[in-house]
């Protein structure tokens, strides 16, 4: 069966390239907008970029740890009720 154009490896490579260019553009835009930072930390370069990335990494980490303790098979309750 013909693969949908959106899932062909060539398209996905182009999508990644486009995504990285957009990421770079948001960082570059930082140089041209005037900030009215409320807090000192907000004034550090590309604060929202690195803070967003690290927050997500931390949240995924916490979720994985919690999952170690609290994950059960999805038939857990059917077997008990």
């Amino acid at each position, binding site marked *: 069966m013909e693969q949908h154009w959106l899932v062909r490896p060539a398209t996905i490579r182009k999508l990644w390239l486009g995504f990285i260019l957009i*990421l770079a553009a948001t960082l570059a835009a930082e140089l041209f907008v005037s900030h009215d930072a409320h807090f000192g930390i907000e004034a550090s370069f590309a604060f929202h970029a690195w803070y967003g990335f690290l927050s997500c990494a931390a949240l995924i980490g916490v979720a994985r740890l919690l999952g170690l303790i609290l*994950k059960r098979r999805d038939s857990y309750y059917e077997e008990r009720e």
Partner: protein
Amino acid sequence: MTALLAHPALVLILGAVAIAVLRGHARSGLVVTLPLLALYLLWSLPDGTHAHIRFLELDLQPLAIDKLSRLFGTVFAIMLLAGGLFGLNQQSRVELPAAFVYGGAAIGVTLAGDLVTLFVCWELMAIGSTVVIWSGAAGAYRASMRYLSIHLLGGVLLMAGIAGHVAAGGSVAFDRLSLDSAAHWLILAGFLVNVGAPPLSAWLPDAYPEASWSGMVFLSAFTTKTAVYVLLRGFPGVELLVYIGLFMIFYGIVYALLENDMRRILAYSIVNQVGFMVVGIGLGTQMALNGAAAHAFTHIIYKALLLMSAGSVLLMTGRRKCTDLGGLFRSMPVTAVCGIVGALAISSFPLTSGFVSKSMISQAAADEHLLYVWLALAAASAGVFLHAGIKFPWFVFFQKDSGLRPPDPPWNMRLAMIFFAVLCIGLGVAPGPLYALLPYPIDYVPYTAAHVVTQLQLLLFSGLAFFVMLGLLRRTLTITLDVDWLYRVPLPAIARALSRSWATAARSVGAAVVPRLRDTGARFYREHGLEGLAARTSPTGSMALWLMIMLLAYLLLYYL
């Protein structure tokens, strides 16, 4: 009193009866016109109190309206309109009428000028929503009973609080309450149960996803948002709410990240989004309260849109787990695009409704120089994109090719989704009309270059984190235990054990007591039974004789 005939909630609740009875086009027509009529009535009422009822010496005001109640009433009516349109094909004949009672009662809460009317509508919502869940799939009955138990508990807390408040001489009018008495704490606790606050947040992701494909669309809108409304009116600026809200935000994200069921992901994300509103209410400045109210308005629309998209997938494929889904963008383009618009809006992308509402809450935290609250809100905004903004559309519509090729749903469902998708973008592009509805004067410009750039950085780098760490997010056939585990596994086990030992105890007590009881019974029968002394009948004549003797004795005594 005649004003009550034009009460939007009453119109919807009575209309629900007609929806239950009618069939065919008449029913469909009514489903669409009733919310429009409610909207018209809502907007033709000027600010103020329009009806008074004296009840048990209390002055009830069932129809009081101001900017805040009009804002919530409006979005509830719009929700009923789109949800009704979306749910027209629902086979269950009970669900739509129940949803209209539920939504009507929610509007009743927003128009209640006193605590008694508020309580009555509150309980009516609990009943309506339980019936909506009930008409879901096979497992829905048990879930609906757990849901009802929690909400009746919340209702009891609220009732006790209101009774205490009135008994202490408080006015029955619903106004701002200060946390200076046990009664007011009870009222707050009753409100917090419905808002999905800890420790009972689990009722929401436990029950809502068991509703039908259309039922959950209604459920996502009314219960938690009426709770936001009553907190906004009753407890603005209570600092505790900031911490409760932050907990809800991160609880929602972490559990949603672990979840495999697409509609449970969205259920956890309701708790997460309502958490933002609760933080805003706790901050209590005009900016924060405007933000909480605006966010409730936009949230109802984009969350309903997301659930319509998920509901369409559920209806057309019969599947709800991410592990079974994927690649649906090929055959369901309208559902996929509308789902993505909802996902962008919940993530607060520029040009969507979430961008113009949520940022007011962060701005309020910055204005108050609350660094840690502000940092937490920023991390949470990144997390929203992670758990709902990308995760939902990615695993349902892209991810892998599941081989499923279902078509888009029927036209009325597509129309409802497109209507809400247009609203999500329209409110984001032109927030003026929404800002004009907010309770306080507003001085906020969402579209500054700095705000757009920083928000794009935050979201796009969160997106990068998602795809870089995709291996850690792979879906598994698992659930994650929550507080509902306590009342689903150990508590029933304890109850069963107790009832077993109670039965044993009852048997041994019975062995000792029953013979004695039998003796006592026999003695009673001897004295009072058919042949007993006390049961003997006397002729009427002797009765008359004794009466005469007593009257004579009385006469005699009188003359002595």
